[in-house]
């Protein structure tokens, strides 16, 4: 069968699928990303199928579990096509009503619609929801239409068309010229021009060449690569086959994090399906080009996202980075020229080929072309994945798309670039986001994590968190990284415990520079960034911890106390019962008191105190000392 498979057959398949999809007038799509999975989307989809059968509608209504829609905050998400009616937080009890009202009677179920929090307006269509409205979803948009476990869905949406064009109408030089002209930069962090990288690899003569898709998305808080692999795996595969053709590679690896079980499953299945249709393997689409892909499951080491470590890992060794040059394009896997790109970069490739380099380079800023997917998470109202043109202002992303800060708190900073990046403070809200502007602000693009922080986030604690992370993940090869990060964590921990001294800031700065200069790979070279940017923008918070022994954000346990306000407490016994160490005393309808000597500051009392009462407060600094003094006086009197 594979010999006979050719572009005409692919067109026939495409025509046949769109015909059969047209026959079914409606399609209920249920988001099947990891977020919605956790909310129970599979049960929702099953219930839809059952109900449709019951109503005998299976010939006109299709149910499809699709890739991630991105608006994880409102899951499980259901969109009814072709209208694009957007239902959010849908539950099993809503299913019957959706079928009888929306599908049969063509009426909208109001309570399932998204409500714009400011205007209280109910929004019917997916594209009208503010979260989506300002986005430009050229890479991510198809996720919501495609069942990732079915290659036909991808083919129907012009999938593998770019591959046909490349294999039959273009030379590999032309492909590289196109990618170069598009200005596509690697989406993995460093932002190197993808076409340039391909060219270097192509120019190195060798009998065997490899390409790798880096899906070891290790930055905590970033999950766009996972969503692409889960939701539209064939776009990544198509990009890789095109890249392999341009570079002259015969084998590709997808190195995917094992912490993403659904992504591993979907990409493995997609590779099998592509093989069975002759889109991978010998004589691809009847051409003379051969190329195959293997899936490699990572084993839980952050450093293996670094390209030389990743290759060591594929070779079956510890993920230790090595000196560059030689670059992977010169000597990579098993000493052969190897080209490594990240998931999102590969997914951009078919688009550049289909729409042309000129179209693509029309999107974005002068030096950063195209769109970028960000994972907007943390203290933000609309958590989710957003795809925007490069150059969009931070303010637009956080307020217009993200819907602002949770619980009407004050925006403090956004952390970009994962553990290698830095924090961008509130006064830089009008920063136009691209590779260059973020680097200038002391942070970096990284893979696209955007962790929003509000007034309740302690920046010293955040710096400590990241250094704790990099210290744990440092492979140990270079002394400055192995020991330097340890020292940085120790100093930061001391500061958060109120044991910092005035020379610590200087020490942190000096040490950070040594770690940056003395480390071999990106992990060590960037590890101090979170410390440096927080000192740069939030020096006053460090000083408060060091000089006043107070934590202004009320986070650092050793610097705060919990206190029950006598004038607010109604004596409901809730906190008393929930205190794990029995530190709270009191009787029904009498004011409760926390014994500060027993309290472990777990926050359970604050957590359970009813919002109407909100009698539990946190204190730091002078106020804390006053309350403690008063408490000890009372103890003495008793």
């Amino acid at each position, binding site marked *: 069968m594979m010999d006979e498979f050719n572009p005409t057959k692919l067109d026939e398949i495409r025509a046949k699928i769109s015909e059969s999809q047209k026959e079914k007038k409606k399609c209920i799509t249920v988001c099947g990303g990891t977020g919605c999975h956790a909310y129970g989307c599979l049960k929702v989809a099953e219930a839809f199928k059952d109900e449709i059968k019951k109503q005998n509608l299976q010939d006109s209504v299709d149910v499809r579990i699709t890739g991630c829609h991105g608006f994880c905050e409102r899951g499980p998400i259901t969109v009814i096509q072709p209208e694009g009616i957007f239902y959010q937080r849908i539950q099993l009890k809503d299913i019957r009503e959706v079928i009888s009202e929306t599908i049969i009677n063509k009426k909208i179920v109001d309570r399932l619609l998204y409500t714009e929090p400011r205007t209280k307006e109910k929004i019917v269509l997916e594209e009208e929801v503010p979260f989506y409205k300002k986005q430009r979803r050229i890479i991510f948009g198809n996720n919501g239409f495609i069942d990732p476990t079915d290659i036909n869905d991808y083919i129907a949406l012009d999938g593998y068309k770019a591959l046909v064009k490349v294999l039959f109408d273009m030379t590999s030089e032309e492909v590289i010229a196109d990618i170069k002209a598009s200005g596509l930069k690697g989406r993995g962090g460093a932002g190197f021009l993808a076409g340039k990288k391909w060219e270097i690899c192509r120019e190195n003569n060798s009998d065997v060449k490899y390409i790798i898709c880096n899906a070891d998305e290790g930055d*905590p*808080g970033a999950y766009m690569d996972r969503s692409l692999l889960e939701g539209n795996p064939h776009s990544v595969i198509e990009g890789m086959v095109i890249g392999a053709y341009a570079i002259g590679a015969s084998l590709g690896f997808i190195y995917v994090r094992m912490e993403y079980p659904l992504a591993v499953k979907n990409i493995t299945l997609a590779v099998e399906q592509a093989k069975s249709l002759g889109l991978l393997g010998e004589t691809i689409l009847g051409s003379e080009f051969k190329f195959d892909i293997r899936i490699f499951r990572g084993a839980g080491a952050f450093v293996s996202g670094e390209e030389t470590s990743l290759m060591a890992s594929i070779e*079956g060794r510890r993920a230790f980075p090595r000196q560059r040059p030689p670059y992977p394009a010169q000597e990579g896997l098993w000493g052969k020229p190897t080209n490594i790109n990240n998931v999102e970069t590969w997914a951009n490739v078919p688009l550049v080929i289909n729409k042309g380099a000129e179209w693509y380079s029309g999107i974005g800023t002068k030096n950063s072309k195209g769109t970028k997917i960000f994972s907007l*998470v943390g203290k933000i109202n609309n958590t989710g994945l957003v795809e925007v043109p490069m150059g969009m202002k931070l303010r637009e992303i956080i307020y217009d798309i993200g819907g602002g800060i949770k619980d009407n708190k004050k925006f403090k900073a956004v952390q970009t670039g994962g553990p290698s990046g830095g924090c961008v403070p509130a006064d830089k809200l009008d920063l136009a986001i691209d590779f260059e502007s973020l680097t200038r602000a002391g942070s970096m693009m990284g893979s696209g994590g955007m*962790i929003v922080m509000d007034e309740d986030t302690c920046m010293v604690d955040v710096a400590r968190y990241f250094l704790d992370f990099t210290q744990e993940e440092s492979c140990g090869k270079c002394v400055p990284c192995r020991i330097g990060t340890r020292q940085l964590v120790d100093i930061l921990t001391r500061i958060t415990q109120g044991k910092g001294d005035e020379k610590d800031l200087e020490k942190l700065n000096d040490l950070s520079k040594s770690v940056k200069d003395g480390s071999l790979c990106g992990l060590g070279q960037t590890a101090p960034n979170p410390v440096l940017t927080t000192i740069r923008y939030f020096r006053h918070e460090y000083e408060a911890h060091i000089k006043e022994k107070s934590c202004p954000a009320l986070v650092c346990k050793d610097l705060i106390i919990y206190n029950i306000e006598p004038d607010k407490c109604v004596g409901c016994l809730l906190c008393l019962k929930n205190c794990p160490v029995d530190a709270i005393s009191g009787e029904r309808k009498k004011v409760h008191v926390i014994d500060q000597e027993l309290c472990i500051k777990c926050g359970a009392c604050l*957590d359970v105190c009813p919002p109407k009462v909100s009698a539990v407060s946190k204190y730091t600094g002078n106020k804390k000392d006053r309350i403690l003094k008063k408490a000890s006086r009372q103890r003495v009197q008793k």
Partner: protein
Amino acid sequence: MEKIMSEYTKVQRELIHLLHDAQSKFGYIPAQMISQISRELKISESEIFGVLTFYKAFTLKPRGEHLITICMGTACHVRGAPMILDEFERKLGIKAGETSEDNQFTLETVNCVGACALGPIAIADGDYHGQMKTREVDEIIKKLKQEKRKSSE
């Protein structure tokens, strides 16, 4: 074990695949497995030991019957994941990375599971518990214990 071995060509690049399969089959990497891989792949035992202890996916000790994983990603961190972890550690009487003496529970942390909208997250035997509160910790542990009782009845 032989079956796992027979599925791979005997070269170094298969080492991590082999370890993955052994880990999911036995729940840990048994010591005999190391010497067997060493013989078959012609890699020294010390190197295999080096590789498997380098990666978090592999353990040398069996895990408990129930596995509780706490996500420590940045989004979960700013939403209070450390407090959730503290509470689990307190309630189970073990630290992250340890298994309880009765072999019932293993408590682990993970850098990020990418379900940040649900943070802070605890994953108990594969079930995701989102937007965790400290007071919900006890319920999860109790539920896991009950499941055990039910299945043994």
